[in-house]
């Protein structure tokens, strides 16, 4: 009996590397085929003249990039992508910190409030965005109604929230922040609850006020978790196309296009795969930077 079990164990150990490879290779193969493969195909398309419905394609060098860089729509798209990503992140981090502090203290009904606060994040964003499209409707907007009722605007004279370029940009920015705020809040809340209670209490005993405790003791301890919230937030907003597509479809006059929505408009709706692929490749530099910082956070967490 003892011999038998010893034998089984040694076989199990000897088989381990092979078994291990057999267990992870389907997933790795799938990812190589459907993530890495298409990624390189996108690079390949960007240097070609590929179009939907045309099987022939030729190598055209940097031609696509040259014409993109000269297009005003592209410059607007890259500017908007950066505005939406950075400004929404600033709003979200300020708001989420305040909200996380407020939610940390227990109070009656906290579970239900948390559910309500989380709705923008957990409900499908396409549906949240269509809700906003109704709130910002050109005629029946409830926001306009309130502003008219408060005499900020004359009846029928309220602004077209999604019809004027600057207001449309502000609206998209607002919806992005609305969507991301719950996510950052729960991440920061997780970070706060992980801080041992006696540290801020000791600071309070030593005479540090609320704000000093927050800024000099809690915030520094929250740095890793804050960077996680920011890095994911940047990615989610930068690569998103749903909010813009539903609210404005890039309009009016391409004024709210972002890199992903312009890539869709040209590459899929306009059948110009090469141009679409070239535009979407402009997402890569920021993604690489974010991945680098993400690895640093993960590495630091491993070492300490």
């Amino acid at each position: 009996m003892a011999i038998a079990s010893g034998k089984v164990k040694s076989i199990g150990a000897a088989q381990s590397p092979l078994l291990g490879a057999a267990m992870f290779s389907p997933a790795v193969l799938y990812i190589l085929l459907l993530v890495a493969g298409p990624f390189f195909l996108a690079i390949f398309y960007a240097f070609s003249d590929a179009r939907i419905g045309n099987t022939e394609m030729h190598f055209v060098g940097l031609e696509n990039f040259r014409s993109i860089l000269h297009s005003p729509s592209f410059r607007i798209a890259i500017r908007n992508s950066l505005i939406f990503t950075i400004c929404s992140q600033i709003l979200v981090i300020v708001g989420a910190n305040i909200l996380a502090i407020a939610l940390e203290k227990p109070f009656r009904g906290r579970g239900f409030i948390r559910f309500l606060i989380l709705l923008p994040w957990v409900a499908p964003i396409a549906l949240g965005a269509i809700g906003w499209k109704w709130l910002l409707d050109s005629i029946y907007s409830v926001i306009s109604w309130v502003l008219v009722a408060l005499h900020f605007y004359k009846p029928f004279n309220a602004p077209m929230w999604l019809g004027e370029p600057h207001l449309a940009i502000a609206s998209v920015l607002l919806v992005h922040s609305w969507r991301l705020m719950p996510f950052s809040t729960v991440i920061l809340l997780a970070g706060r609850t992980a801080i041992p209670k006696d540290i801020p209490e000791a600071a309070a005993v030593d005479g540090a006020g609320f704000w000093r405790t927050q800024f000099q003791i809690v915030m520094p301890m929250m740095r890793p978790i804050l960077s996680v919230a920011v890095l994911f937030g940047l990615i989610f907003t930068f690569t998103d196309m749903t909010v813009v597509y539903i609210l404005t479809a890039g309009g009016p006059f391409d004024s709210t296009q972002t890199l992903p929505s312009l890539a869709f408009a040209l590459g899929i709706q306009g059948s110009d795969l090469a141009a679409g692929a070239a535009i979407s490749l402009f997402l890569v530099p920021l993604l690489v930077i974010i991945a680098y910082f993400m690895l640093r956070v993960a590495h630091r967490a491993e070492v300490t």
Partner: protein
Amino acid sequence: MPRKFSSRIWSRVVHILVIAVFTVLLAFPFYWMVITSFKQNVDLYTMENNPFLFNAKPTLDHLKFLFTQTQFVRWLGNTAFVGVVVVAITLLLAVPAAYSLARLSGRWGERLGIAIFLTYLVPPTLLFIPLSRVIAFLGLQDSLWALILVYPTFTVPFSIWLLMGFFKSIPKELEDAAMVDGLTRFGAFVKLVIPISVSGILTVVIFTFTLVTQEFVYALTFISSESNQMIGTGIPIFLVRGDVYYWGALMAACLVASLPIAFMYNLFLDRFISGFTVGAVK
């Protein structure tokens, strides 16, 4: 003493105020969906009416319209079907991979795990153009199978990551003991590790399913006919006829589709968050 008392009241007032303001800002669009869903059209589209009140009797017409005159039910079915199949594929790929990376391959497993996590950062908006050609090449245009093929690209990496953390928390000695008792390594995995990991696996199931329901870009790119839509694309695109928005039905659809998803996600939220925080919280 009175000063201290009043400052405590102040801090309570500020606390309540902060929570109230944020809750209203964040939840208002959903509250508005509820209001709109049950209002008659005459009420919705009369500008003199106070939109916060029911100026005419509440109605179920929009819901009736949604369930009988549109393909809404079909879209719910499509979404559920794709969700279930993608969950199955994700489990088949991710559970063994996560176990193997957590246990068998040591330092290498760690690196491969991080590499897989990084693929989660490659967004659909970067891949949808080349993938649209792959889908066309495979003859899967306008088929739900196109989505089933592609959705695991974003569900598998994150699931492997979540499960790796889970499997690492199971003590190795447990499997060693089982192997001494005559089970093979794979046998120990199937008969021992999987049963005690049910809650981790359930987390992946819910996470995968909600990700499928939230996806938009691939469904928009690959699916064209009305009857093959998912809820995320069908509602915003096909409930609009020409330029006419059926706001009552639209809002009812958003509400019916998002509340169950939100509820499911909420139940498992803390686990998802621990996946996102990549060990930045101990």
